[in-house]
């Protein structure tokens, strides 16, 4: 028993560490709870579509049929296999500051070295993009209700129409505090999403987004902190691999705990994890 003590200690430390860090996770929506309710003692009044989880001690999304709240993160997970399907939500943006940020960002593109003529050609547009090409009045915000990690602010191109299945949007991602670098998303209804960097052209294509079982894992790692606190989209193989590893060690409950403990005991685990992530993000 005495010999097992160190082994048990490291497991306990790992469990303690993971449970502590999970408690620090704060979703953007849970930061703005209404605490002025008249219930005594004070309880959090959750936003619409959410409910209080007594075990997690926070507001969690009320899942639709066939899903349940994950016992660690509170996110909606599919009954059975644990995958989190995309639950896209959209609303109009009325915040003038956000709209102005989009406009000023677009107006500064030329001085940032963006060649709009080349970009327009690569996008397959029959014209060169100008500020007048984009509808900065009807801006929309899109986010995955099952993964409150970030939101996309999109100004659609005026040339988009319901008759045309191809659409374009000038998009910036935000985590509610910082706005990321802009990209352009080309959508083909129920077919594909193409992400274009303004300076490097096509970054990545997602072809199965319309599937009910689609999960965002294929672009995990493509959203990463850049210099100066900015965030940008770039689905390069190396970055995606590293983010995949970070994700595995941090965001998967018991699997993360197991990876953590096993790596401490058996270091080649990290190499195996890296290889798996590299294969997943670079070849598959």
């Amino acid at each position, binding site marked *: 028993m005495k010999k097992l003590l160190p082994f048990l200690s*490291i497991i306990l430390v790992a469990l303690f*560490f993971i449970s502590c860090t999970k408690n620090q996770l704060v979703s953007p929506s849970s930061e703005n709870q209404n605490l002025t309710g008249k219930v005594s003692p004070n309880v959090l009044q959750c936003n619409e579509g959410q409910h209080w989880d007594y075990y997690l001690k926070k507001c969690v999304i009320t899942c639709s049929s066939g899903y349940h709240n994950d016992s660690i993160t509170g996110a909606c997970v599919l009954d059975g296999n644990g995958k989190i399907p995309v639950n896209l939500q959209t609303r109009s943006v009325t915040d003038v500051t956000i709209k102005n940020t989009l406009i000023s960002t677009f107006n500064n593109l030329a001085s940032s070295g963006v060649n709009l003529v080349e970009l327009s050609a690569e996008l397959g547009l029959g014209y060169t993009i100008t500020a007048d090409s984009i509808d900065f009045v009807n801006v929309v915000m899109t986010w995955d209700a099952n993964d409150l990690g970030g939101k996309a602010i999109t100004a659609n191109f005026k040339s988009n129409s319901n008759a045309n299945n191809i659409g374009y949007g000038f998009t910036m991602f935000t985590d509610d505090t910082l706005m990321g670098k802009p990209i352009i998303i080309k959508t083909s209804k129920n077919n594909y999403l193409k992400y274009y960097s303004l300076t490097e052209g096509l970054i990545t294509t997602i072809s199965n987004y319309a599937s009910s079982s689609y999960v965002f894992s294929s672009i995990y790692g493509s959203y990463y902190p850049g210099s100066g606190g900015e965030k940008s989209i770039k689905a390069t193989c190396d*970055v995606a691999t*590293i983010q995949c590893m*970070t994700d595995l*060690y941090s965001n998967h409950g018991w699997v993360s705990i197991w990876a953590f403990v096993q790596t*401490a005991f*058996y270091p080649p685990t990290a*190499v195996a994890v890296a290889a798996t992530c590299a294969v997943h993000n670079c070849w598959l």
Partner: protein
Amino acid sequence: MKSILNFYIFISLPFITLMLASRYHLIGSYTWAIFLFIYCLIYHPLISGLRLLANGIIKKNKFWYNFIPGWNSKYFSFLFFNTKGK
């Protein structure tokens, strides 16, 4: 490094520090990955080798074998449980 307790402390603390630094965004993903590989491929084998050496399990000329991933797994029982059986 003879004591198993010291071994656990030396093995665990840098790794826990690394994970906490990553969790609280004190280091970026690249830095995290670089330190993880340094830990796994250099630091962990080094500490394991020092423990095996200090306890006379391996000879000095075999010390570098520890840097071959998986080589010292045959001493796993001794390294982590202080037992000499495989």
